């Protein structure tokens, strides 16, 4: 597995599919690891549960994190990521339907790097994903 992979945390399969399509359409060819809820996301990041034994030195270059999820929601996941030394510096982009100030402000407080509202119009979504990929995967220098 390539080092520069993306972790997509999204419970809605439609959104997973559309996101993957948008990435592909924008020629972002990085590997995308998809997990369906917050618990799985943490399992992946720390090599537990289903992902026990995963090589932990291979951390995703970008985490796309949905907020509204069963079991463990996105804000909790973000909090855990920022508390753990191993994942503290990973770029996390919140990708959500919510347009609530509370969510946005809370996300930034907890250390989200970006906050993107998923537009209804797929074309707009494509645009957003394109810029996202361009910035975080190409322009941004990791610490």
């Amino acid at each position, binding site marked *: 597995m390539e080092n520069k992979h993306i972790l997509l945390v999204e419970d*809605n399969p*439609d959104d997973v599919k559309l996101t993957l399509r948008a990435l592909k359409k924008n020629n972002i060819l990085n590997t995308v690891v998809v997990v369906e809820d917050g618990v799985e996301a943490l399992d992946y990041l720390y090599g537990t549960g289903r992902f026990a034994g995963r090589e932990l030195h291979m951390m995703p270059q970008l985490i796309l994190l949905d907020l509204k999820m069963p079991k463990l929601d996105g804000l909790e996941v973000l909090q855990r990521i920022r508390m753990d030394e191993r994942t503290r510096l990973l770029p996390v982009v919140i990708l959500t*339907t*919510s*347009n609530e100030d509370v969510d946005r402000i809370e996300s930034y407080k907890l250390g989200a790097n970006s906050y993107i509202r*998923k537009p*209804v*119009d*797929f074309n707009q*979504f494509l645009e957003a994903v394109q810029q996202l990929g361009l910035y975080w995967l190409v322009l941004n220098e990791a610490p």
Partner: protein
Amino acid sequence: MMEATDSRKQIEQLQGLIEELQSANRELTEVNFTLLSRVREQEEETRHFSSFPELNPNPVLEVALSGEVIFHNAAVQRVLGDAGLDRGNISAFLPADMDLILRELGKRGEETLSREIVLPGKVFAATVQLVPQFSAARIYAYDITERKLAEEQLRRAHDELEMHVRQRTAELNKTMEALAAEQRRFLEVLDVLPVYVVLLAADYHVPFANRFFRERFGESRGRRCFEYLFGRTEPCEVCETFKVLQDNRPREWEWTGPDKRNYAIFDYPFTDTDGSPLILEMGIDVTVQKQAETELVEHRHHLEDLVRQRTSQLEEANEQLQEEIFERELIEAALQKSNERLALLAESAGLLLTSETPEGIVRTICEKVMRHLGCQLFLNYLIDESGQRMRLNAYAGLGEERAAEIAWLDFDLTVCGAVAREGRRMVIEDVANSTDERVHLVRSFGLRAYACHPLIYQGRILGTLSFGTFDRSSFDLDDLELMSAITGQVAIAIARKLAEGAVRRAKQEWERTFDSVPDLIAILDKEHRIVRVNRAMAERLGATPDQCADLNCYQCVHGASRPPAFCPHSQSLADGKAHSVEVHEERLGGDFLVTTTPLLDENREMLGTVHVARDISESKRNEEKIRKLNDNLKNTITQLAAANRELEAFSYSVSHDLRAPLRSISGFSQVLQEDYGDGLDEEGLDALGRIIAATRHMGRLIDDLLDLSRVSRTEMRQERVNLSSLARRVAGSLVDRNPGRHVDWLIAADVVAEGDEYLLTVVLDNLLRNSFKFTAKQPAAKIEFGVTEQADGEKVYFVKDNGAGFDMTYAGKLFRPFQRLHTVSEFPGTGIGLATVKRIINRHGGNVWIEGEPGKGAVVFFTL
């Protein structure tokens, strides 16, 4: 003087007694002396025989130096008799100092000593002879018992006599002192008497004169009375005094003394202590009485003279008086008439002033006056309330029919009318020949003289009073004066009647007002008694106003035995101020606002209070209703707010959750279009395109709805917001996004408002975006933002454009969500923008409204 004589006799008797006693004493002393000398002789004899001890009938004893009786004769034995001759008894014969005598024996040589020896019932005189050669003493004793007894008797008799003499002397002295004191008192009494008292002797000497006499006439110093009183050598011829001595009877006479004063003299025969005749004379100074008497006599003479003179004068005057009386009778007749008039006036004044109905009494009085004046008619007119005519109030000398004809008079064309109008009296004499037109009525009665006076009270003309006569053609001055006077009285009485009427009317008006007030009014005195209540109060108490008077307010209103704690009347009585309290009283059937106001008399003393109770039951009930309604309303509001919040939350989550499937529809439609568009015919592609467009529109709707709900949910801050710069920013972004459009922006500078910057941005964004949208088809688009001021100074902000405009009929719809006046194809939009604006403006407490005209543009106004 009798007492003095008695005392003197007593003294003489006493003195005689003393002398008798003294001579008896002398005799007794002599007897004793003889007796004593005889006893002594016997003693001598006895002593002579004592030298013969044995034979000696008197006791003889010899005593040795040792004190032992070595010899005693038979006499000793005889004397001692039955007592025996033992040693002890014999030693009774020895002198008490025998031991001493024996011890001295050697030293003295032959010598005799005398001693007395006392034995029971006997006394012996003992001669102790010392006999040195025999170392013994011889005692010769002889009995002196009898002598001793005689001496003792003599001494006792003498003592008794002396005591007797002392007692008698003391009594005598006491009597003498009393006598002297009495004499002194007597003389003092004589000295202080305000009359003189003298004793005159037959030889004209003056043995006694009291102080009064001495002070007036000096001391006689042995001279005879006529010598020292009058300096005469012979007794006075006028003197009556000494005649007393001739017949021994008292005399009274008057005497003029050498001091030229008059004395009333009283002479009494008097016998001196020595029995010689004296005259006791007493003189009282009667000079003043004498003078007064003389003056009295003179006065009487003078008065008698005067009486004689007056009598003659009176006789003259009497004659004159007889003449004057005749004249006076004439005057009195005139006076009588005048008096009658005065009496008439006084009577009428009294009647008019005291009568309850002075109007009615006018007739009685005027009839009397009429008769007195010798008139046959009187008319009394009063001006009626209109002031335009007069009514016949009282009359006499007319038939009823005739009176009815002239019951009302106009001011013109009659004498009475003229008088009433001008306020001046008119006297018509010789009526038959008068040329005055106004006299025709008077003439028609057949009167010959007629006088009419105006009734005037305090400058106000009330009517007229007139008198007429058939007998003579004129009135004299007295007649007119009487008429004038009676007119004045009647005027006062009528005025009083009118004033009383006014007062009564005012009272009635006040009472009517008092009774028609719907409030419950009671006038209370200081003892909580009801003075008066109005009808409303009485009705509530189920009584008439009269029945309520004098009742206790707390008893009859509250059914209590004392004023209740809240009683405002008590408070007003205590502090003299008005008090109000709300009271619920079942007995009066409701709630009342009770106000007590102090009632003061003219001296500002409190009489009680006016107690006004206003029934506020209705307003209380209303208040209660309003309160309940308010509570309900508050509940409703609370419920509504809760429902609203739920609704907001619901609409939010719905909108939110709707987006995800929509995104799927939109996304996969796009996938279909892109990946499988080639396999679809034109109709299929069109359908797909419509799905995509619809999802896009729905996405916008959802976003707008979320905005709208967020407007209501976000917390508002109040801050100073520069609306001008907000507007410019919005315009700038619109221009950036639509580079093909040309719009003339007119944005007023420095428009500032208080509000929430975020929400106001939403407002301007919506409004300017709307204008931008609706001017899309306008080649010379113009959008304006500014502010004006209303008449009341409130700022009105506006956004104005010259776009499509709208029909004002639908202006009200524009601010409701989803309401649009244009199709989406004409102008795209969701119909939520203005609803959001309205909600924000309302949250700021402002108003928003819109004006427009199709094809000419629209203006949205708002206040904050």
